[in-house]
Structure formats: C-alpha cells, structure tokens
C-alpha cells in the first residue's frame, strides 16, 4: 500500500510537470530565422572622408548602452597632425566637446586627418586564443563576441588585443568590445556607427558579397589593415591610411 501511494504521488508530480515543461519550453524560433553561415561581415573605412564629428562614438554608446565616461570605448576617432618638422601629434577626439578645440597654425601643418578605430573582428583573433574559459569566440558570421555570463574577468584578452579595442565593462565586470552591433546586423540593419556617419566614411557589408558598397570599396581602393605584421587578419580595411597610423 505504501508503495502504491508513493507511485501515485510521484505520477501526480511527473505528469503535470512534463506537460508544463513542454508548454513552457522556450521557443528557439527566433534564432532559426537567421542563418549565420550565409554571411561573413567586414567593414571598410575611408579615411579621406572622415570629418571627425564623433557622431559614431556617441551613437555606439547610445545603441549599446556603453558607459558615457571617457574610459570605455567600443569605437573612437583619432586625430593625426603631422607637422612640417615631421613631428606627429595624435589625439582622441572627445565627442562631448562641441567641435574640436585644439588647432595648430596653418604654417606648421604638413597633413592632418581623422582615423576612426574599432574592434577589427580579426579572423585570427589573439583575444579568442588567450581566453582561459573560452568566453570570447568567433561566430559563424565572423563576429567576435564575449559571453558575459562566462567571462571571469581575468583581462588576458584585453592585454592580448594589439588595437586597444577591448575594455572591462564596469557594470558587468567582464570584458567588452564592439560587436558590429550584432543585434542589428542579424536583422538586416547597419551598425549604429555606420548608420549615423554623415559622410559615409564607414562602410559595412558582407565580405563575400558580390554587389554591395563594401565590395565596391574593395575594388576601387588600395586597402590597408592595422598592424598587418601581427597576422591577426583584421576584417576592417582602411583606404587612404597614412603610414603614421598605428
């Protein structure tokens, strides 16, 4: 009798539990609509078009909820001024300050320009290689992401990135960086920085595509990547990149 009562009680839990489990199973339908293997994303930057307005920096922080303080950047813009005496001065433009404050006398300048920077979403990413728990990884569509639930905050990836693209998110205490606005590109939108650039200095697209602004960019320009000798195989290409840019 004891055993029968026990089995009855057990079934009373198991059967409704099983039904509930089936009903409440989270749907994975959303993920199924987007096939990551059909895309491979990259970016092109035309240095000659950047006016250094900093709207990309602001838009990125707005879109991705990055802390507004000037220590955490997923993307930033550098200003290079090469003087006639070959002295090179580099500054970060601060989008919070309207306009760009410091200027040099015209007589001294040989050439001057702005260079937008961001995570290069490398194909041979040193950050992915060194993560001890595999919290950062490259997706099938070529974007390097960070799992904020697995990252232990050891900061090894931040040390390993040659481009200074990573930082430690002060809220989650995990490593963070540009994701190419993954939540936007997988829905057919452009990353926020590309969206708001007034001069189309940033071009986003599928590196394997045949008819796209990125493909035209790659056809019509001689391309550079940053720190090519480190063999990180960056997927962000620059046209008009000056030799003084690091």
């Amino acid at each position: 009798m004891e055993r029968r009562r026990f089995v009855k009680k057990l079934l009373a839990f198991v059967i409704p539990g099983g039904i509930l489990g089936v009903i409440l199973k989270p749907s994975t339908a959303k993920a199924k609509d987007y096939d990551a293997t059909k895309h491979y994303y990259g970016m092109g930057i035309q240095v000659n078009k950047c006016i250094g307005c900093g709207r990309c920096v602001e838009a990125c922080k707005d879109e991705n909820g990055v802390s507004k303080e000037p220590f955490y950047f997923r993307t930033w813009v550098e200003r290079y001024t090469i003087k006639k005496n070959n002295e090179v001065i580099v500054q970060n433009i601060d989008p919070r300050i309207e306009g760009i404050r410091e200027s040099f006398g015209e007589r001294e300048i040989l050439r001057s320009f702005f260079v937008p920077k961001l995570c290069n979403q490398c194909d041979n990413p040193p950050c992915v290689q060194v993560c001890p728990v595999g919290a950062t990884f490259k997706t099938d569509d070529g974007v390097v992401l960070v799992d904020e639930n697995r990252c232990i905050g050891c900061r090894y990836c931040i040390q390993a990135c040659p481009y200074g693209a990573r930082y430690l998110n002060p809220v989650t205490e995990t490593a963070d960086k540009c994701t190419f606005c993954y939540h936007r590109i997988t829905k057919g939108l452009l990353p926020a920085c590309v969206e708001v650039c007034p001069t189309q200095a940033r071009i986003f697209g599928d590196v394997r595509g045949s008819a796209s602004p990125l493909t035209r960019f790659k056809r019509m320009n001689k391309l550079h990547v940053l720190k090519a000798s480190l063999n990180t195989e960056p997927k962000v290409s620059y046209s008009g990149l000056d030799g003084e840019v690091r």
Partner: protein
Amino acid sequence: MKNFFPSIPEALKRLFVVLVVLVGGFLLVRFVLPASLKDSSLHVKSTVEREMERPIRYAGSDVCADCHDEYNVKQGGYHKNLSCETCHGTAREHSENPAEVKPNLPRMREFCVRCHAYNASRPTGFPQINPAAHNPLKPCIACHKPHDPPPPTVPHECQACHAEIARTKAVSPHIMLECTTCHKVPHEHKVTPRLVKATIPAEREFCGTCHGKGSEVKETPKIDLSTHGEKYLCWQCHYPHMPEVE
C-alpha cells in the same frame, strides 16, 4: 600473482585509494554533470541569442521615409548621405510609438557647427565655416534648410568649401591672388562640385607670367624658366597656396 599484491608497499596502496577518489571525482564531473554546465557550443548559442535580443535604439534610415516626406527632400540634396538619425537621434521608439515619443529637433547653432566648423584635419572640399565670423549668433536654419542645405545664394568665395586652402593662402605671399587667378571655375562646379571640377595650370609658363625672367610684374621673385627646375611643373615642388622656397 599470489605474491604480487602483498609485495606492493603499503604506502602505495593507501595512495591508490586517494587516486581512485580523485579519478572518480573527475569522471563524475566529466560524465555525470549536465551538459549545460560544460558544453561550449551551448554557451556559444546562448550568447549569440542573447546578443541578438539586445534592444535596438536606432531605427535605420529607411524607416523614416514611410511617414516623412522630408526624407525625399533630403535625398535630393547635399545631406543625402546623412541618416535622419544622425541629426535627430535614436528613433526606434518613435517609429513604434509615433504619437507619444518624439525624437530630437536640433535647432541650436552648436549642432551644425559640430560638423561644419573649420578644422585643419577635415578633408578639403567639405563645407566649413568659421562659426565666430559666419553670421554669429544667428541660428543656421534661418538661412539653410536642414533637409536641403545649400545656402540661399551660391557662395562666390571658394572659401566655403576650400577653407583650409583659403586659410593657408591667407598667410602666404600669394595672399593678394584671387583663386580664379590660377583656377578656371565653371559655374557648374558650385552646384555639382564632384562632377565638374575647376582647372589647375598645366604649363610652367603660366607661373612664368609673374615669376619668369622677362616678366614685367614688379616685386615677385624671378627665375630663369629655361634652367630652373628641370622638367617639373612649378607646383610639383612649390605648394602654390604656400609657395615656400627651399
């Protein structure tokens, strides 16, 4: 066999027990723990899903066209490369709830000045003004419609777009020369500048009219065209807007 087991030192037998416990623990972790704790591909999948579900703030440029005709006005003018959100800020919420959530309507001078203030690092050809001198205190939109921004009158000064060159020339010995002295500028260049370009002098004799030995212009430095500068055009060595001598 009978003599084997007793001949193993007692110490080793004790240690063997410890080893069994450790190996057992390892096997437990490896095979008994649920996959969700361990399997990397599950973590990757959940991270990708989490990233894809982040909130979207920028709606994208096409969305505005559905309701606002200004989009078409913009597409016909110089601001066609700007996304609406470049100036109006994030608009996703507005696109989902147009009546209650409104995007920014920038009307202050500082807003336009951020892109259009003169800066030596900005590329030549980008329209730049000196905000302190150009109609100070007046809102930009008083004369320039933001969706179709060319000024009410076509600028007769080249300086509006070629600010860096104008400023450089202004502190050089060529200060008294009009741009049109050396460049022939068809009227279309002021309307569609990238399609129709101004000319640059193609012969050494052009500069010779002021700087050649036989020139009647007084006070200009003179050289012998037949011997000076080998086969080069004058502006290949002397930057005409700041014509310094070695």
